[in-house]
């Protein structure tokens, strides 16, 4: 494992106790230039995770709390008539940051949601005919409460597809939780902790992800997985080519974190639940709303060529 990246993970692990795997995956998502969706109950550390990552990687961080009365202009910014200059002046919104935490995204109306998602996709914002580029790197961590909670607008499937990964944090283990309950306030530790790398290094790492080698054998494996999801009767829809790109990109980033120059099937399997869990729906009216067990079955069903 790359030493620098390991330090990032370890440092983040000190704050988000017992969640190494989640930290690693979210770092992989970031290195793969993808956006991250965290879906879990309130209070398990979604915001902390986003905050920690921003801190460790030395990113400019903004948080947008999504509410049902949030307007698109509250996200992207607004043009205001400046009397002194006799013209409209664009006041950038909170989205102009390197790491944006879109908290509880499913509490906002679809209109506000799509403003964010468009910005994510295009990596730029257009108001009044003027295009404003977003900072580089640009990384959105959206959090979402489980959709069966009251007063939410669950993201439609097409929007879910824009997130490279969907993670769930889950409750901490007993020992980790004990440390959390008995130890110092995590926010204080976070304030003290400095950045491990800066955005310059981060950009370099992102470059290196693209250079990780993907062999024909691995592409075969990826295609077999896509084909299985399309042929099997267990899923409502098969995976899209974009899902295939996401899988490979995620696997590359994972391989980089593991310190490899090439992608192994194991890397692909490691990122698979996070990259396709939100893109797969069970066929029929299954009681299982999340895709993780579906992904496990899929991994078990597709032999490695």
């Amino acid at each position, binding site marked *: 494992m790359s030493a620098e990246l390991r330090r990032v993970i370890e440092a983040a692990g000190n704050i988000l106790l017992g969640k190494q795997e989640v930290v690693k995956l979210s770092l992989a998502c970031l290195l793969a230039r993808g956006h991250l969706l965290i879906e879990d109950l309130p209070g398990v550390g979604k915001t902390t995770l986003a905050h920690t990552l921003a801190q460790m990687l030395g990113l400019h961080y903004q948080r947008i709390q999504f509410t049902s009365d949030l307007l698109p202009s509250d996200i992207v910014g607004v043009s205001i008539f400046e009397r002194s200059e006799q013209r409209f002046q664009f006041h950038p919104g909170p989205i102009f940051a390197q790491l944006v935490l879109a908290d509880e995204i499913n509490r906002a109306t679809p209109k506000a949601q799509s403003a964010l998602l468009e910005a994510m996709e295009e990596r730029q914002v257009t108001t009044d005919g003027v295009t404003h580029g977003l900072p580089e790197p640009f990384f959105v961590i959206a959090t979402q409460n489980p959709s069966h909670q009251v007063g939410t607008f669950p993201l439609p499937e097409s929007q879910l597809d824009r997130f490279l990964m969907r993670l769930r944090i889950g409750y901490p283990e007993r020992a980790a939780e004990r440390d959390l309950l008995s130890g110092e306030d995590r926010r204080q530790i976070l304030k003290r902790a400095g950045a491990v790398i800066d955005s310059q290094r981060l950009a370099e790492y992102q470059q290196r992800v693209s250079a990780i*080698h993907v*062999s*024909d*054998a*691995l592409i*075969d494996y990826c295609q077999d997985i896509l084909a299985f999801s399309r042929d099997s009767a*267990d899923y409502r829809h098969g995976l899209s080519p974009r899902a295939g790109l996401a899988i490979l990109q995620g696997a590359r980033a994972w391989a980089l974190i593991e310190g490899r*120059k*090439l*992608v*192994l*099937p*194991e890397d692909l*399997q*490691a990122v698979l639940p996070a990259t396709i869990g939100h893109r797969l729906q069970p066929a*029929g009216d*299954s009681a299982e709303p999340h895709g993780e067990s579906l992904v*496990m*079955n899929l*991994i*078990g*069903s*597709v*032999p*490695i*060529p």
Partner: protein
Amino acid sequence: MKQPVDFTVTPAFVTKLSLMMALALLPHVANIPVNISLYLLLLLTWRIAGLYWTRLLPGRWLLLAATLISILIVYAQYQTLLGRDAGVALLGMMLMLKVNEITKRRDIYVSVFISYFVIITQFLFSQSVLLTLYLLGVVIGLTSLLLEINRVTPPRRPYQPLISTFKITLQALPIALVLFIIFPRITQPLWNFSSEASARTGLDDRVSPGTISELIESSEVAFRVQFMQPPPPKQQRYWRGLVMWDTDGYSWYTDDKQVLRSETIKLMMIDNPVKYEIFLEPHDEAWLFALDLPLEAPPNSRLSQDFQLRYNEPVTKPINYSLHSLTRYGMTRLAPGLRRRALQLGDNVTQRQRDLVARWRADSADDRAIVDQALAFFNTEPFIYTLSPPRYPGNPVDEFLFEGMAGFCEHYATSFSQLMRIAGIPSRLVLGYQGGEYNALGDYFIVRQYHAHAWSEVWLEGRGWVRIDPTAAVAPERIEYPLRLAFGEQGAPAMFEIDGGGMVAAMMRHFTHALDSANIQWRRWVVGYSREHQFTLMRNFGLDSYSAMQWSLVTLGMVAIVLLLVGLNIVRRGRLLLSPAQQGYQRFCNKLSRIGISRRSYEGPMDFARRAARNRPDLARQIMAIVDLYIRLRYASQERDGRQLRLFARQVRQFRPRQR
């Protein structure tokens, strides 16, 4: 990473499998003795009880002991372990013992495949359509269990494997049908078990009073008949079997050598011949039945000069044949030798018989009148037609005629024939069946054992052999209506089904007729689909220019090509065309598999190497080196690097793990 759901043998699954295995065996209950069936049930109960009280499950030694006991039981029952019946009993025991041994996935495969085999053995006993449908259902059930254990994900609904199997079966059906029709048929069966027959009921080649009335209790089917035109009336539906020329006064028989010599017979046709097809059940004797009188001999049989059909071998399996018959006919000449035989008498002729005949002779102008007198005698004297005739131990004919006066058809036929011979009229006894029950659904007649009948034929100058049925003179209902099979006390008159029974009886008859009809079609088109039928079909398609051998080769060639194409498709889809690196890796995995470390199909090389190294730290270095090379070849896209490839191949070759 997490593992997919692995299949574990659950009690529910064992119950299902045991049930299917028992169902596969069930029809054999009719073929094996009751005590063996009970023993099999005991073995099954043992397993089911074991589901609830696990302690009951037999260990290895107990199971071995049970196996030996089972073999001993079979041997005690049959005095052999070979042959159809003992073999099936043994197979049943092995199957039910296997039920007690289902613990692993492998046991399930073995159990299902033994069950398939048991299902095949069912056809050694019966090939009826009902059994076939039943067994098809069992096959689907068993296959769905195979499907269930081979699923990676648990089925969403419990009956889903069953539906899938049903679909697979439907998909297989056209292939089965095509192969059934075109695949060359074997004329000789591969096994010849069916001759190992139990005693079958049927007519004997020797008749004495009482032989037919024994048959009358059996409702087994003797044969079925389908007419190609409107059937003759019931009074003419006499089914000729054997003709008896010789008598010692007690029983009638025939000396084959003398009668079967062929001779040209001039026959006058009074009516047009009737065409029909007979589906004969096996009766273990070498003769066939035909409507009185057959005009030709079906394949593998001869027509004797007294119009018996002799088959080349005992009929041990169902056969069909088509025939023409004349119901009304005349003949001109009786050879002197035959006339002598037709007048020969036993030593039981008494004076009162001679007196009776002399009285008729005095009152009659010709032979025909004597016949009428005799029939009138049976009709007017207090003769009784009974299913339970008294025994006539001394001189049967004499005691029947003058003392008992109660008898069944053979009593009347034998006495009548003997009286005719005393009167100097050549006569002979004919044995066969009379009537038959019409199956409206299949438009054919079922002739059962209780239709067995005996009648006489007398030679009248100018007319030839004339059928005389003295039974009809006593009890015309015998010919008109079916017998009611209620056996009264000895000598009680027979009853007849004149009203056709109640509604329930009618429904039952309707049902049995429907079933019988389905069976006969099944036998005609499926079981009876012979090489001859196949060639006829080929000729209709203009394919008859091939010889049987050529045709076999062509069919086999076609099958081979189809299999090859299917196989290639599987290879292409399954990417079984492996690269050298993959082949090497495969060998490496196989070697590890032999020492108990098998790679799961979804397990990546690094995961597998780590697991293997954890299991066998002594091999860790070698394993890691090989997997490292493999990863470089395969995932760093260096497969074309010949040097590395050779290194990899050598390392795999030198990797010789031993079981610890």
